[in-house]
């Protein structure tokens, strides 16, 4: 059975190769090939899953070693896969949502002449992402890690003729590289500490080394996670990443890739458990980000950017949970999965809206769309309810658990702080999602003909797009509940991530109640602000906070001033130095000899008598020197 694991990766990889090298002749069939292979990979995943369910909890992990990758004296890296419950969860999510989005894209990208390449990239992404989650060592994981980075680079910049897209893609890759630095340093640390970087040996021998080393490794892993999962301080790329086609945003920048950080931390749980300081750092990052993202989400008028902010915030929840240790891992992953469903659904909904609105993204130019695109409205609505954690829907189950766990982060002040933050986050989430909902689907229509005079005619999207949305909607409604039936999900993961019951500083029912209250407050506030009076088409100047939030809380400005400008100055001055100083010394020496030569040749003045003088003098010196030598 384990020999099938490689197929998970092989299928989409094959697709990518075929589509990217295939050339124009595949333009008509390309998208089908891509989708087919994605589904095939999903099928393999399901097959393995059923097989896994057949075994008892302890013996579910599968392992497949393909070949020795980098064999060097004292350094062993293999291409080998490990499929345990954690990986399995991701495989299903990735291939499942992935397949859906392939299908969705068939319709969405219909009019793009480079659709074949789009599907090639999507397949490439699937392959890389699957590699990331089934690798059995950190170095191979690193390959997947950067692979998804590449795919996301290609897909964000898919419409390369738009400079903004190209820039966004580059930015995403660069910011991720900073994270990757963390990952590679972590791997080096592991190598020097444990002599290996395969999951098994490393995580088992955690006990053999000091906490300091582990903290270092943990922080480096956290840095990596921040990059990939758009956590503060490396979150700035996610908003711009929305330049990519919407299905990409749904798949990569909502459901799967951005959650890789959570996977990394959960996977390295053993290390973090032994390094509380690192854990604290993780929790802080998570908490900060979930508020940060939420605030940004409140201010954006671009529907996708608003959703991006929400993604950040939701992943903040997951990171926070993952930082809590055994009490949180399971819920982090659970929220990750449910989030995968509803956020993907929301993005697809947004995509469908844009599809109907000539790719208009400004929510202020929407309004009252519910009658034009009912299916989208319903699915989007369900996703909305799910994300704000409306009791009974997926989001409720997962997020509520995280809030509980946060309150249980050591029985003391920490519990209160992070619990409170998580709670607050829930409220803000409710606020901005309600805002999105209202501005998009309620109120009266606000769109006008654009300068070229063609007015958008909102219409429902084709089946290929709506069906995936419906499927995801189901997920967003029921997944959470399903998972929570006698903690089936937690039990499923327990062998990998361990599990301890959280003991919050206040009683669970109280937390649940307050959650519901908070979200009602948030939603209500949003209704008051946007539901009662008509929404202005041009954004009002807004408060200082709003304006800051519109600009991602000035984080980009900071980057621009400090890194971009500073970098430019640095490189310019270095170019100057290289030319004048380093090179100048060399040319200077040459010139120096030239000048010396020019001066010396003046002695050769053509007068025989002066030559005689030099001879005479020379002889004198010769004699003097000889005598001197004898004297001394």
């Amino acid at each position, binding site marked *: 059975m384990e020999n099938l694991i490689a197929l998970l990766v092989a299928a989409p990889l094959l697709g990518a190769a075929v589509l990217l090298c295939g050339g124009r002749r595949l333009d008509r069939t390309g998208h089908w090939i891509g989708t087919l292979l994605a589904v095939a990979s999903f099928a393999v995943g399901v097959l393995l899953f059923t097989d896994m369910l057949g075994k008892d909890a302890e013996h579910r992990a599968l392992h497949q070693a393909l070949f020795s990758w980098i064999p060097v004296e004292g350094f062993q890296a293999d291409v080998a896969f490990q499929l345990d419950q954690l990986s399995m969860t991701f495989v299903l999510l990735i291939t499942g949502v992935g397949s859906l989005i392939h299908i969705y894209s068939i319709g969405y990208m219909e009019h793009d002449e480079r659709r074949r390449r789009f599907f090639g990239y999507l397949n490439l992404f699937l392959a890389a992402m699957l590699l990331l989650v089934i690798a059995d060592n950190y170095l191979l994981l690193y390959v997947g890690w950067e692979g998804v980075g590449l795919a996301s680079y290609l897909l964000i910049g898919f419409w390369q003729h738009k400079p903004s897209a*190209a*820039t966004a893609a580059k930015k995403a890759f660069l910011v991720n590289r900073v994270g990757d630095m963390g990952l590679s340093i972590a791997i080096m640390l592991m190598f020097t500490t444990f002599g290996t970087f395969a999951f098994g040996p490393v995580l088992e021998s955690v006990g053999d080394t000091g906490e300091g080393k582990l903290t270092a490794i943990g922080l480096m892993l956290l840095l990596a996670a921040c990059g990939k999962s758009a956590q503060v301080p490396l979150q700035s790329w996610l908003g711009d990443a929305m330049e990519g086609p919407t299905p990409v945003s749904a798949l990569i920048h909502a459901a799967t890739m951005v959650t890789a950080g959570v996977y990394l931390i959960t996977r390295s749980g053993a290390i973090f458990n032994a390094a509380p300081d690192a854990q604290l750092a993780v929790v802080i990052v998570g908490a900060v980000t979930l508020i940060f993202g939420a605030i940004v989400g409140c201010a954006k008028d671009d529907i996708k950017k608003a959703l991006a902010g929400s993604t950040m915030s939701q992943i903040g929840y997951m990171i926070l949970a993952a930082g809590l240790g055994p009490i949180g891992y399971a819920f982090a992953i659970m929220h990750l999965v449910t989030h995968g469903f509803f956020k993907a659904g929301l993005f697809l909904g947004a995509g469908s809206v844009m599809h109907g609105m000539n790719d208009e993204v400004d929510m202020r130019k929407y309004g009252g769309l519910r009658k034009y695109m009912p299916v989208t409205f319903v699915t989007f609505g369900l996703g909305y309810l799910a994300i704000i954690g409306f009791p009974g829907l997926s989001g409720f189950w997962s997020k509520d658990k995280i809030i509980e766990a946060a309150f249980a982060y050591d029985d003391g002040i920490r519990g209160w702080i992070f619990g409170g933050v998580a709670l607050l986050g829930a409220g803000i989430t409710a606020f901005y999602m309600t805002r999105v909902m209202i501005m998009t689907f309620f109120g009266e229509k606000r769109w006008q003909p654009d300068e070229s005079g063609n007015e958008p005619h909102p219409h429902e999207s084709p089946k290929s797009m709506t069906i995936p949305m419906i499927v995801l909607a189901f997920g967003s409604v029921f997944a959470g509940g399903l998972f929570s039936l006698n903690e089936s999900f937690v039990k499923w993961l327990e062998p990998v991530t361990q599990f301890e019951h959280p003991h919050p500083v206040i009683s669970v029912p109280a937390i649940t109640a307050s959650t519901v209250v908070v979200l009602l407050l948030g939603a209500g506030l949003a209704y008051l602000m946007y539901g009662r009076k008509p929404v202005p088409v041009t954004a009002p100047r807004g408060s200082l906070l709003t304006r800051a939030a519109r600009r991602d809380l000035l984080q980009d400005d900071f980057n621009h001033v400090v890194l971009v400008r500073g*970098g430019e100055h640095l490189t310019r001055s270095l170019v100057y130095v290289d030319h004048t100083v380093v090179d100048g010394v060399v040319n200077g020496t040459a010139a120096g000899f030239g000048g010396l030569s020019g001066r010396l040749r003046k002695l050769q003045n053509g007068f025989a008598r002066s030559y005689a003088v030099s001879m005479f003098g020379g002889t004198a010196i010769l004699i003097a020197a000889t005598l001197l030598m004898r004297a001394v």
Partner: protein
Amino acid sequence: MSFPLLTATAAVPAIGAIVTAAVPAARRTAAKWLALFFSLVTLVLAVLIGVRFAPGGDRYQLTESHSWIADFGVRYELGVDGIGVALIGLTALLIPFVLLAGWHDADPQETGSKRWRPTQGFFALILMVEAMVILSFEATDVFLFYILFEAMLIPMYFLIGGFGDRAHAGSDEKAAAQRSYAAVKFLLYNLVGGLIMLAAVIGLYVVAGNFSLQEIAAARASGELQMATSTERWLFLGFFFAFAVKAPLWPLHTWLPNAMGEATAPVAVLITAVVDKVGTFAMLRFCLQLFPEASKWATPAILVLALISIVYGALLAVGQRDIKRLVAYASISHFGFIIMGIFAMTSQGQSGATLYMVNHGVSTAALMLVAGFLISRRGSRLIADYGGVQKVAPVLAGTFLVGSLATLSLPGLAPFVSEFLVLVGTFARYPAIGIIATFGIVLAALYSLVLYQRTMTGPVKPEVSAMPDLKVRELVVVAPLIALLIFLGVYPKPVTDLVNPAVGHTLSDVHEKDPKPEVEAAK
């Protein structure tokens, strides 16, 4: 007396050079095919070397030894270890592509005398360089190596100065002037390095009495050849200086951007992917083996210089406006990694460095050659003159992207493996340096992607709107290189198996052992 395979491998291109040069002016195309043929034969022989070489066996294999200049204690001694085999393979592999890529670079535009045969000259010179480089990888006699090390400058010099980029902004005179400046700079820089090495070579002879690498190394190991510490250090510095110029190592690098900028893309590849490797190779083979103590004494300084090269080169690459100069500075950064790996004195570092030499050769070749195709189409080297190429020439853009990704050492492509090995190897002994070096990977991403973004993406510039996509010949050049990049990225084992034993020997030369992992050390 078995078949002298090593000599043959070097002799074939040499003969090829002479034959090619002898082709009459009118039969230009014949000369090209002839040169290609000889380079392919060389490739076959190189493969044969790889087959005949037994990684587990003696340190130097396929050895040949004949008396040459007894008076100077010079023998014609050849022999290859794994490192040599790998680099010979790289050279023999790249040259055919270089020839193909430069197929039309030397077609005479204006007619000089009827004896004037630039094309024949171009191809002959390239083959001549190949011969010398291959022989220098095989030489186990210091003097023989030195002679080749110096002699290969001359054909390179004519290649740079004689066949500069036709597609150059500005007037012909200006181009010619810049070109000869670059050529002279290249030659003088390396000549000075070489002459300083000559002094050291003579010094070595005075101390050791002969030039045989193996004898001297053995004598040193057995302790019958003692060197005063200061002597050893001076000699080491003499050798290292020459190699550092060739490599090039900061601050001796400034010739490279000029040379690579002015030379045609294939020649630029020849410089950075093939000839410069002789420098790093020589560090591994001669500096460490002949002067182990001095090498260790100098290691900290050299590591710092290498570190500077890495960061400095990358930063300058970011600041470049000229595609080829950008690649040149990127190479400087990469050479920093190679040297760092060599002097980290760990098996990961040195295996990584050797692997790096090969991978860097392939990846730079891929990127530079595609860049050359691009430049020859638009007739400008300035990044600013391009934009939106991927729209009109998607294949070209795609290959260019792969090249850039290789340059930023994306996992899955060959350079990643070597770069990571070097980093790990360095980190294991000098954590701080290792960590700073990792900044290099961010900067690499920066300049590669900026280059790609500025040239390939965005709205289509009118000047490039009519740009044709890659022709078959060009595709034949690029495709195999890319395939190789992917293969070596996924399955570098063939090379590492070749290299590991050799690296083991080198480490034992300098009496170094890999630092043990903390956990094992604890147990």
